[in-house]
């Protein structure tokens, strides 16, 4: 009886387009879905630091170095922010980190691709952050209050990331022949994986139904993907780079770009752990975590000593 009343109250909030807050009653599935989605988002920020962090010491100008360093720092901040939002759902940071390290929780498949040249810093900003923004703008309207507020804050910084990525691409596309080649090569490698960031087709997305009904997700995977392609295709044109999809073409009737089929076998393979960097990313995270164990232990022992002295 009580359960029924709770559910009605919850649905009333959802239907009125109001935000669900941590203190509100929520169905267990809603909570689980949010923990999975927000933590996956947080883990993506954290693992996403690796491919870019790998270029900080090699950035080709002081300006580029400062921007990249600030960007990777933003990602750490976003990760922290999203972990905190997840903690409001009754799970600890330690549990979240453990889920990441044991493979129980996922992160975006895009970060399982290697950042092999400096142009990849351009494509990661332009395409990867560009795709993330499309998703995050939509999520600003998500029904869970802490997640929605995190998205509003994060979107502001992401649009700066996307611009700096596009700026790198612009410089390179207009630079020497070698730079142009490097830029086109990076676009060739990152285009399809960035389309995969939006997840499977709607017809094949097991989590979409409830998530849309509960307004956790506000737009479908395919709609978001289309929005990203429409925006990005024009940007590629402006700087004279070619998107590696022979079927990409403006469709006047639809008012959208048509595009070729994504290699879903590759997507599945990378999700399941056989991307070029899956093992490396988790090994890196584990190593940092393990190497830092004595530091965390010292900090907590010191804090306990201080508390005892103060008492």
């Amino acid at each position, binding site marked *: 009886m009580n359960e029924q009343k709770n559910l009605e109250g919850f649905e009333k909030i959802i239907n009125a387009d109001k935000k669900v807050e941590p203190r509100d009653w929520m169905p267990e599935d809603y909570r689980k879905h949010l923990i999975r989605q927000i933590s996956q988002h947080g883990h993506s920020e954290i693992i996403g630091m690796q491919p870019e962090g790998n270029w900080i010491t090699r950035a080709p100008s002081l300006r580029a170095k400062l921007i990249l360093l600030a960007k990777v720092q933003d990602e750490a901040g976003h990760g*922290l922010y999203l972990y905190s939002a997840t903690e409001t759902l009754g799970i600890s940071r330690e549990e979240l980190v453990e889920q990441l390290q044991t493979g129980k929780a996922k992160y975006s498949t895009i970060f399982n691709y290697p950042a092999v040249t400096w142009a990849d810093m351009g494509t990661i900003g332009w395409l990867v952050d560009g795709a993330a923004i499309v998703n995050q703008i939509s999520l600003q309207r998500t029904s869970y209050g802490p997640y929605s507020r995190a998205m509003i804050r994060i979107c502001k910084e992401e649009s700066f990331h996307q611009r700096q990525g596009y700026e790198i691409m612009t410089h390179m596309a207009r630079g020497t022949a070698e730079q142009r080649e490097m830029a086109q090569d990076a676009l060739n490698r990152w285009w399809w994986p960035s389309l995969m960031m939006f997840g499977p087709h709607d017809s094949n997305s097991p989590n979409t139904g409830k998530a849309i009904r509960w307004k956790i997700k506000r737009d479908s995977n395919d709609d978001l993907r289309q929005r990203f392609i429409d925006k990005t295709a024009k940007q590629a044109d402006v700087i004279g780079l070619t998107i590696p999809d022979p079927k990409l073409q403006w469709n006047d009737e639809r008012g959208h770009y048509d595009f070729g089929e994504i290699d879903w076998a590759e997507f599945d393979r990378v999700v399941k752990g056989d991307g070029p960097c899956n093992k490396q990313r988790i090994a890196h995270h584990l190593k940092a975590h393990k190497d830092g164990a004595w530091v965390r*232990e010292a900090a907590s022992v010191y804090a306990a000593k201080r508390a005892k002295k103060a008492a």
Partner: protein
Amino acid sequence: MTKQEALFKYTLRLGDNSLILGHRLSEWSSYAPILEEDLALTNIALDLIGRAQALLKYAAEIESKARTEDDLVFKRAERQFLNVLLLEQPNGDFAMTIARQIFNSAFELLLFEELSKSKDEMLASLATKCLKEVKYHWRHAYDWLQRLGDGTDESHARMQKAINDLWMFTGELFEIDEVETILINDAIVIDTRELHDKWLTKISDAIKTATLTHPAEGYMQTGGRIGIHTENLGFILAEMQYLPRAYPDAKW
């Protein structure tokens, strides 16, 4: 040596110190013991590289040979870098990084306080700006020195080893040569030797409160300020300079 040459070299040394330490700290990105510390170390690295950019831009202006700050960073060879040896030492474990931070930030705290009164307006204003940042760097290092020194047996041992190992590089911070002598006369810089006692008191107090033992006095290494480095610098430069060296015509 003219006054202009002395000022160029002095500013270059300061700029190189910031650059190389900023580089080292940026290596911690995604490797810190805890996420909050990843943010903190990157913050300090950003301060330092930002400071290097301002100082090296000023150095290039003083030199007046149409070099830019990027030329100074990416197109000089090992023997032309003038940072002190302490700052190019590897990050090691977290204790080693904290030891390097505490020695250097205690020194910078005293140095920039004095430099903010410099007769050279540019150096004075840069020093004033840095001072705010360095206060945070010092606080950060001091707090960690306490936690690690007075934490577990393991952290205590690691912290003790780190200050012992890096102690031989601290003497170089206080050296002066013809460059400083010329500028001291014009009240542009102060005699860094005069900062040593204050520095020692500050460091000794911090070490003592952290339940650690003061490192034994011994021979002090030197050479960085005249471009004779440890083997570490070559690797830093190989990494840092690779793109502009490999594509000399490219603009990024």
